[in-house]
């Protein structure tokens, strides 16, 4: 039965990531924690792009909504991490819902440009209120402000498992979602929206739901990033941070549950390895984007699924 196989494989990855902490040298702990948080961001992105077929160029807006929702609550509201995190996630959900109401009136290229423009407006807004956000320079969230239920999240071990918990949640939500009727309908919308409508589904409501879920996960990743790495800066709201999840998901395989993690992992270490040769790491990102669109539009996991493992969700 493919259900058991799927569950074993995906839970296996989470167990492996948990165990790696005890195996890998310390240098990789920080890297993997960062990868898991960013992969959670990619998982969120994949729900909209990979499964619903809506290519957003503005997800940095949601990531930043989470990061600044948390960061500003801690910095200026004196909040503790748990409520601040909730505020960040909620901020992302609200922003995603509002943008969805506007952007979903368009399709295709117009949808891409609309999301790009609103995210850019969000980025500029963060710069505009530099007095509070400290603009490009950003602000540090102090170690003392990062105690969650007595656990110091600036400590490598605590940070690793917090990142693992976040990623596991996003990953399992995405796995659960695409096997539910709601997720199956999203996939069908990606394939042929008009047909889905004529089967009696409110496709607009489904796309709205997908965008809110996607934005909420992105915001959770953004909030966690601020909390775990102690920093919030405007660069996380820039176009580049909207392109990154697209790149990771394309590389790993859009519309696969494993793809976002695989893509984030590969890209991270690709840039890490190339940093010895060049500091212009965005060059690597650009080349990868072009090569992927040309030669492997399905990404790594997508190609695997097409060739050998049709049962992969």
């Amino acid at each position: 039965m493919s259900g058991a196989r799927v569950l074993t494989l995906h839970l296996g990855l989470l167990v492996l990531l948990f165990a790696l902490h005890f195996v890998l040298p310390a240098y990789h702990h920080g890297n993997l924690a960062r990868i898991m948080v960013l992969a959670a961001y990619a998982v969120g992105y994949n729900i909209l792009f990979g499964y619903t077929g809506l290519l957003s160029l503005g997800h940095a807006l949601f990531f930043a909504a989470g990061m600044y929702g948390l960061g500003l609550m801690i910095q200026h509201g004196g909040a503790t991490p748990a409520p601040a995190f909730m505020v960040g996630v909620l901020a992302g959900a609200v922003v995603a819902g509002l943008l969805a109401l506007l952007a979903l009136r368009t399709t295709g290229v117009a949808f891409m440009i609309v999301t790009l423009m609103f995210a850019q407006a969000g980025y500029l807004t963060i710069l505009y209120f530099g007095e509070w956000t400290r603009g490009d320079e950003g602000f540090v969230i102090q170690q003392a402000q990062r105690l969650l239920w007595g656990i110091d999240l600036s400590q490598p071990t605590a940070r690793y498992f917090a990142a693992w918990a976040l990623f596991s949640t996003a990953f399992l939500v995405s796995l659960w979602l695409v096997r539910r009727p709601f997720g199956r309908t999203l996939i069908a919308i990606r394939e042929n929206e008009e047909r889905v409508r004529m089967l009696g589904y409110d496709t607009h409501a489904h796309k709205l739901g997908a965008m809110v879920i996607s934005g909420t996960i992105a915001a959770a990743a953004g909030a966690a990033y601020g909390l775990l790495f102690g920093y919030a800066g405007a660069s996380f709201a820039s176009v580049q941070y909207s392109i990154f999840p697209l790149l990771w998901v394309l590389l790993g395989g859009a519309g696969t549950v494993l793809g976002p993690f695989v893509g984030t992992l590969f890209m991270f270490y690709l840039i890490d390895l190339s940093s010895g040769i060049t500091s212009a790491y965005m060059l690597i990102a650009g080349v990868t984007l072009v090569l992927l669109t040309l030669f492997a539009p399905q990404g790594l996991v997508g190609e695997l699924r097409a060739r050998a493992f049709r049962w992969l969700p």
Partner: protein
Amino acid sequence: MTLLSTRGLSKSFDGLQAVSAVDFDLPQGEIRALIGPNGAGKTTFVGMVCGRIPPSAGQVMFDGQDITSLPAHKRILLGMAYTFQITSVFARLDVSENVALAARRRHPPKKVAVAVDEALARVGLSDRSDEEAGNLSYGHQRLLEIAMGLAQKPRLLILDEPTQGLSEGEIAGFKDLIRDLAKEATILLIEHNMSVVMETADRVSVLDFGVLLAEGTPAEIHANAAVQAAYLGTG
């Protein structure tokens, strides 16, 4: 009892009148064929019936309820099903998933699997349920379309040129299927193939230049001079 009726239903595209003031009544349980030359407005007409195309004027009534302002998905939930003229199954999804998408809207979660199996069995695609829909032959894709319509358990099934591109043998099987379907659903059939129309339809409506030209039994329509001039004569 009248299941579907339209009053003064009209559509114009940029000043071009595609459908003009059609009054149409379809009693429950009937197989009705809608025929007419290419560009007569048949697809536009059923598009307005099921909500794909907003009408310029007129009303659509379904089961005694004015549904003119309802969006397509709500009309479908009232018990309509529409199969596309151009095959539009979900090519990259499994055959069974295609049908399940249709069935989930109609059946409680636990009954979906049974409904899918039933629908596939009725069109004879049971042994293909795990294949990717895009890999099916053209004729089988048309059958899959019909299975998706069946799984919706519709009260009104609208079939837009279901036999287009089918072989002789497949068409014969299709005629049997239609007669079988009529036991539980009212059927509105857009059809070019005259043998299908003559052998399956209870009544026939003829649309020409967006106007309802004639209506009657297949034999009456066959004998109607105006229809002959507009349609049958030109082949």
